[in-house]
């Protein structure tokens, strides 16, 4: 978990604007601000703009999300900023994901009227992944989560690959950027838009990548080995970001 948060934090460069959810994405944004990106602007979908987060929020709308912030606004305004092209990244938590980065957080089963399992639905995920320039996803990796076909496309990735995302009418040059798991970091093929390995975490193998996905992940020859968290990152994470181990304690 510490490794996942550290990698996630490194992917948010200084000066960028990111919308985050609670949990790992929020922890990563806080860590980024304490390490390489002190000028990272963090937004919360409920209306919080650029807070100096004193502690981990429990809700993306709780009062922590506007603590010493620049503005407290409406959800519509946050989504409008995304729709206007202001927001570089959105950072989404775990869900069922397919090789094109489409996410399911709505139902398990094939009957929408009487689902086997009901999950919350889109929340703001569909909006953010439709509108922000780059979508980052953090999720544990296993065969159930990395599914050949998700039961329900709640949130768009590259849809059916190729140009299908733009053809569906979603804003040009947007889409999934990285998936960070407990095994590796993935990106997407330039043309086919299929998921491909970028770096493998220390101690993990290509077999782990394959065994924990129902679909085939492209393994290029030039994949890297993920850099371990630095002591600076670990100290900030353990002492400032999550001292009560709410997130990093999840294993």
């Amino acid at each position, binding site marked *: 978990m510490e490794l996942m948060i550290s990698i996630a934090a490194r992917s948010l460069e200084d000066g960028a604007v990111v919308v985050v959810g609670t949990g790992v994405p929020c922890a990563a944004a806080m860590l980024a601000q304490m390490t390489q990106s002190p000028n990272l602007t963090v937004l919360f979908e409920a209306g919080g703009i650029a807070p100096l987060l004193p502690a981990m929020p*429990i809700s*993306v709308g*709780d009062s922590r999300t506007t603590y010493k912030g620049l503005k407290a606004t409406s959800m519509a305004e946050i989504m409008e900023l995304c729709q206007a092209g202001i927001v570089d990244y959105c950072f989404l938590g775990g869900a069922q994901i397919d090789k094109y980065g489409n996410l399911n957080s709505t139902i398990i089963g094939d009957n929408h009227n009487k689902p086997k399992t009901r*999950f919350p639905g889109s929340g703001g995920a569909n909006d953010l992944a439709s509108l922000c320039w780059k979508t980052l996803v953090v999720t544990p990796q296993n065969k159930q989560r990395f599914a050949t076909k998700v039961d329900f496309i709640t949130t768009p990735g590259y849809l059916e690959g190729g140009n299908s*995302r733009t053809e569906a009418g979603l804003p040009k040059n947007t889409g999934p950027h990285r998936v960070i798991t407990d095994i590796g970091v993935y990106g997407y093929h330039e043309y086919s838009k299929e998921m491909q390995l970028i770096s493998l975490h220390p101690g993990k193998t290509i077999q782990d990548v394959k065994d924990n996905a129902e679909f085939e992940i492209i393994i290029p020859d030039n994949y890297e080995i993920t850099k371990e968290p630095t002591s600076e990152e670990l100290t900030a994470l353990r002492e400032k970001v999550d001292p009560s181990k709410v997130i990093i304690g999840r294993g």
Partner: protein
Amino acid sequence: MDTANLKQGIGEIFASPNSDEMRDFFRKKKKLIEDKRTTVKDAVQKYVHNGDYLAIGGFGGVRIPTALVHEVVRQKKKDLGFSGHVSTHDCQILSAGNCFNRCDAAYIVGLEARGLSKNARRVFESGNIKVTEWTNGALSWRFKAAAMGLPYLPSRVMLGTDTFKYSGAKEGLCPFTGQKLALLPALYPDVAFIHVHRADIYGNCQIEGILVADDDIAKASKRVIVTTEKIISNEEIRREPHKTVIPYWCVDAVIEIPYGSYPGNMPGEYYSDEEHLMEWLKTEKDPEAFKAFIDKNIYNTKSFYEYLELNGGMKKILKLKQIEHLF
């Protein structure tokens, strides 16, 4: 682009988006500046009818009108429609009372980082609830369209997904640029509940912190019941008119309920009662125990304050105030 290939969602639209009907309604609505104070019991009796479409302000566990939602359960209101616009603890309470049969779902059955509500899931997995899918942005804009007096707003969300397929949206082409857009029908609720920081007796309201969608919900709804932490004078409202988020003509009833967002967070006042919310989630795992829990906390309490007292009363509130102010 070919208009013949434009798609539309198969989800039901539960409330008419016709803006002329609403203009007629608002034309006839009384706009007299008068004292609107009442009680929770009377307001719910008078303004909430079985079958109504309900919108709840706040953010699920932040600035929520708990007393009104409890009263809906206590009065056994049935067959409501409701907008699940980050409906977390409010969805959990309405599910406990089996109060609704249809839902516009953007975020339901979950309590964000706290976990999922087993009982709300049971209700939504029963096959007895009609669900139309949306997103948080889409529902925000549906309220905004209504607040603007329009029948729809175009947007660039939901396209290409199953969320769109099970929504009530339609694809349309921009007449100026040819871009494909998702057209979102205006959402005009029958009744809305909103909890605010301060209001005068006429219903002019001030809110601290995020608005979520409450300015638009208030303008979009036929009837609005406001609970407020504090009633302030009209003079105080007029001294700082820039602070008025909801104007009096939107509001039908005003009830002063200090700590009224409990167990939710009230920005700048008190934090959410995480222990109590975890108790809800834990108790829901056993239907028998949960029934006893709801009897104790809602059906057998006469008012919000009996409920608050059962769960720690002022001592608990003081603790939550300290957490809010990071002591």
